[in-house]
């Protein structure tokens, strides 16, 4: 097998490392996108057997956003296997214990339930905030686009846009400004 053919195959099946910023993202919509990249469904050479998935580094998993009151309504069931071992943890309690767990379970559930799932999950690297070890950050060469626009807090908006944002309502004449 000449060096050309060997390196060509090495490059075709090379694993790229992606990074995904989960601030203000819904974990389940982003899990769909992340799952595609993990399983390699975004590559034309995809085949369920040829394990051509990529690595994905998830940062700011602590900052994920859930719609409405899912934080208190979504429940994660766990059973230790022993009698009376069933436990229901609310989303926010789980998030408080381990900020990466909600996102991890979301990606785990998004993937097809076969033997490769656990193996592919090892290619997922989760970090609660954006402090990522230098070595992993060095591997990253591409960024996955977020699914939702990140809203900006009022006090974070810079003065300049605040100044000349149009006023769409003016106070009546004798209005007492308190």
């Amino acid at each position, binding site marked *: 097998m000449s060096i050309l053919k060997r390196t060509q195959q090495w490059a075709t099946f*090379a694993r790229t490392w992606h990074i995904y910023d989960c601030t203000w993202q819904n974990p389940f919509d982003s899990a769909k996108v992340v799952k595609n990249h993990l399983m390699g469904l975004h590559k034309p050479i995809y085949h369920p057997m040829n394990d051509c998935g990529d690595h994905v580094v998830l940062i700011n998993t602590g900052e994920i956003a859930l719609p409405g009151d899912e934080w208190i309504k979504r429940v994660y069931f766990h059973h230790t296997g022993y009698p009376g071992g069933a436990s229901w943890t609310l989303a926010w309690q789980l998030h408080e214990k381990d900020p990466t767990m909600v996102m991890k379970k979301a990606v785990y559930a998004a993937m097809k339930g076969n033997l490769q799932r656990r193996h592919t999950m090892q290619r997922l690297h989760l970090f609660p905030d954006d402090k990522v070890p230098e070595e992993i950050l060095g591997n990253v060469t591409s*960024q*996955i686009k*977020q*699914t939702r*626009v990140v809203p900006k807090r009022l006090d974070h908006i810079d003065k300049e846009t605040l100044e000349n*944002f149009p006023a769409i309502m003016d106070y009546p004449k004798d209005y007492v400004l308190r």
Partner: protein
Amino acid sequence: MSNSHLFLKSGFPRAPLQNGVGRYICQLQRITLKFCKNNGSSRGMREFIEKQLIDFAKENPGTVVYVKPRRHRTPVIVAEYLNGDREWHNCRNLSKEEITQWITLMKTQNGSSSSLRLRKMWHTDMPSIQGPWTPFTLKNPASNLVIFPNEELSKPLDVEKSATEKLIELFREQRLSEGKLEENRGN
């Protein structure tokens, strides 16, 4: 995993010795026809030999034809090919036409193909001319200079314009039109 592949060999379509690239050679080397002179089951074979064997031999001079009359034996065709395959075929009670069909099949074969399961319907050693797809084909070298995590690349692209942006644009237009108003009022 079942190891049924041990019993039914599978392979890919191959032609012997790049046959057909330069010129086509018929791969059938020898054919032996065994039959019985007076048994009823060799009647078709005897008819074939009387009527059609001569013009068969004339048509393809490249194959040697042996005729083997054997007492009390069922009629059999044995074809030997250039790649060494030997195909044995029993022609008991076959009519002349069927025997001709079987012989033409043997003539057009490259070897005994009855035991090989083909896994693909085409074969090429040059699958790609523009170079196979790699993660690098659609990667602009400029993206090497980007420091990740990059705010700009992470923004979703195809998102409707939000109300705030629309308002800002409207306001800018209003400012522009007012500016124009002052100008033409000024001069």
